[in-house]
């Protein structure tokens, strides 16, 4: 496929130049030219007022497709940390179940490390089969053995779809798997659907810091692999009596050139990690000083949530970087995000605007944070938060 510009029709108006998400169109000598950044997203086709941009199929473009029909079943990578299943593992099982039912196929989970109890638990959460490598060397994450094992299993059992959580672990080792297998990998998906006509997986994900959404396809290679953003998909119902098969796999023949010397958990201050939190109470410059974060911690504690921060507060040194939400921090989507004294710079908004409910508290009624807020209170955080804490305590007692 090619996208070309019919220069005889092009008036050099520049509409396409400014709307191209990849900066791949330039106006040169009054005509539009497409450069190497083109991702063939077709946005320009509908933008051009002259109809001067067209898509042409190359002859013989029908790639020799591998035998795609031999790939069957939906797999999820069941991430475990310290022997406990990560919540994203259950979320992608819930989503995987839907996809597998739609494709009328089996759902399997792949578990590295942990014990038979976790493998059984995965069946309760919807898996028909669990491929379990119960080797203690896999209890802690290491890229090379994890990718070698997943590559081996995919080659042997040929699933058509593989899902993993878009976590530090999933986003680190799954690219190696896709690289080795020569197949597509779509990062950090927020929605997955099956295309009714082709049966292909439609992988929907945000890009450009959440400013646009893209639908990605992997039509000619299998498996179709995606990492899925935590806290977006819903778990299924847990059925303790559900039946399924556990297939034991040996970890022999894996090698590693990296070694984990020490695992440091930093959970004292940040009891729940940001991306797993259902409720986040976040503070910005308006909090005023490090003590102000003590107040936010108390509020978060009362609500069973955790504390986040804007870049401004982190740069001031009021709270460590790992709490930072936004473009250069973490992207979060909790059920409730309470923004306290955060003005709402775009860099912050892109990291939290997909939260279910946003509550904004800010002195300045013009602050952009109110544009994305479900509820807004205009006022001084140092007056409002203590009052909320007091009332919540009363409500609880």
């Amino acid at each position, binding site marked *: 496929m090619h996208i070309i510009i019919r220069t005889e029709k092009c008036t050099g108006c520049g509409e396409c*130049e*400014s*709307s191209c998400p990849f*900066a791949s169109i330039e106006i040169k000598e009054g005509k539009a030219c497409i*450069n*190497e*950044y083109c991702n*063939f997203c077709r946005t320009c086709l509908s*933008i051009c007022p002259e109809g001067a941009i067209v898509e042409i199929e190359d002859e013989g473009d029908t790639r020799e497709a591998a035998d795609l029909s031999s790939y069957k079943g939906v797999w999820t990578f069941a991430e475990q940390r310290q022997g406990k299943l990560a919540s994203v593992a259950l979320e992608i099982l819930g989503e995987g179940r839907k996809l597998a039912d739609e494709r009328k196929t089996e759902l399997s989970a792949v578990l590295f490390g942990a014990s038979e109890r976790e493998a059984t638990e995965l069946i309760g959460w919807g898996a028909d089969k669990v491929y379990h490598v119960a080797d203690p060397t896999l209890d802690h994450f290491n*890229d090379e053995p994890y990718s070698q094992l997943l590559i081996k299993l995919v080659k042997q059992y040929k699933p058509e779809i593989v899902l993993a959580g878009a976590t*530090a*672990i999933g*986003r*680190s080792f799954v*690219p190696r798997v*896709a*690289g080795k297998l*020569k197949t*597509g990998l779509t990062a950090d998906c927020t929605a997955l659907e099956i295309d009714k006509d082709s049966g292909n997986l*439609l992988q929907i994900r*945000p890009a*450009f*810091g959440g*400013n*646009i*959404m*893209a*639908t*990605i*396809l992997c*039509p000619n*290679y299998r498996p179709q692999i995606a990492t899925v953003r935590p806290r977006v998909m819903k778990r299924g119902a847990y059925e303790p009596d559900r039946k399924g098969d556990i297939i034991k796999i040996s970890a022999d023949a894996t090698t590693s050139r*990296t*070694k*984990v*010397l020490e*695992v*440091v*958990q*930093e959970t004292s201050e940040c009891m729940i*990690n940001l991306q797993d939190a259902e*409720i986040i109470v976040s503070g910005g410059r308006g909090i005023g000083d490090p003590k102000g974060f003590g107040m936010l911690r108390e509020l978060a504690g009362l*609500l069973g949530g955790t504390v986040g921060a804007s870049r401004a507060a982190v740069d001031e040194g009021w709270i460590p*970087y790992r709490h930072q939400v936004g473009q*250069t921090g973490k992207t979060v989507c909790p*059920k*409730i995000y309470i923004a306290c004294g955060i003005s709402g*710079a*775009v*860099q912050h908004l892109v990291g939290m605007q997909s939260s279910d*409910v946003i509550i904004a508290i800010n002195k300045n009624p013009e602050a952009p944070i109110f544009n*994305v*807020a*479900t*509820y807004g*209170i205009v006022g001084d955080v140092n007056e409002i938060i203590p*009052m*909320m804490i007091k009332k*919540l305590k009363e*409500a609880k007692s």
Partner: protein
Amino acid sequence: MNCIVCIKQVPDTAEVRINPETNTLIREGVPSIINPYDLHAVEAALQIREKVGGKVTVITMGPPQAEEALRETVSMGVDVVKLISDRAFAGSDTWATSYTLSKAIEKLGYDIILCGKQAIDGDTAQVGPEVAEFLNIPHIAYVKKIEDVGASSIKVHRLMDDGYDVVESSVPVLLTVVKEINVPRLPSLKGKMAAKKAVIERMDSKSIGAEEENLGLKGSPTQVKNIFAPHAKTERKVLEGTLEQQIDALIEELRRMKCI
């Protein structure tokens, strides 16, 4: 120590807006910048050079205008820059990009490869680890601290979702770095002069010895089907009354959402 840093020129996504009528990006006036995480990778490489000696090479795969980004890194003090540019690369997804970069890196020779944890336009974080797989070397993602660089091994702190790991790896190795690792230096005056004069060497699909079927759109397993604007949130509830009444109303909502 021979360090190679992979950088990408990206639009400053914080400046990007959506045209609500056409559902497309408004790029007008949006500046191109070096992907912010990549600056930390360049800084990390310069610090390794200062500590153990060696050479820092910065490469980028992109159109001719990406030269500008390379010059900026020269002003920070890197030794060599290379532009990997060819029309055959058009439409590369992460697989084809990783393949292309790994071919170029093979030609250049390396001990440590550094990348930013992800680019802020695509946000995939996939190219670093995939390059390592193509080169058949280990990688460590989300590095927040380089503790020790030896001739044949390196010790780093890798950020995890619930803390960090201390990881040791053999060299050669590829690292992707997070913002916490350092503060990128500003260009020096001498650096700026050097940047002006710097000769930007080009590499193309032939000179890196790439197989055509693995390049660009042809070599990309994934395709962008379409691009659309995210749904705007419509549900807005206005709280009314005195501050105290507003807080009461808010707590009532929290109760309704079963948070209390």
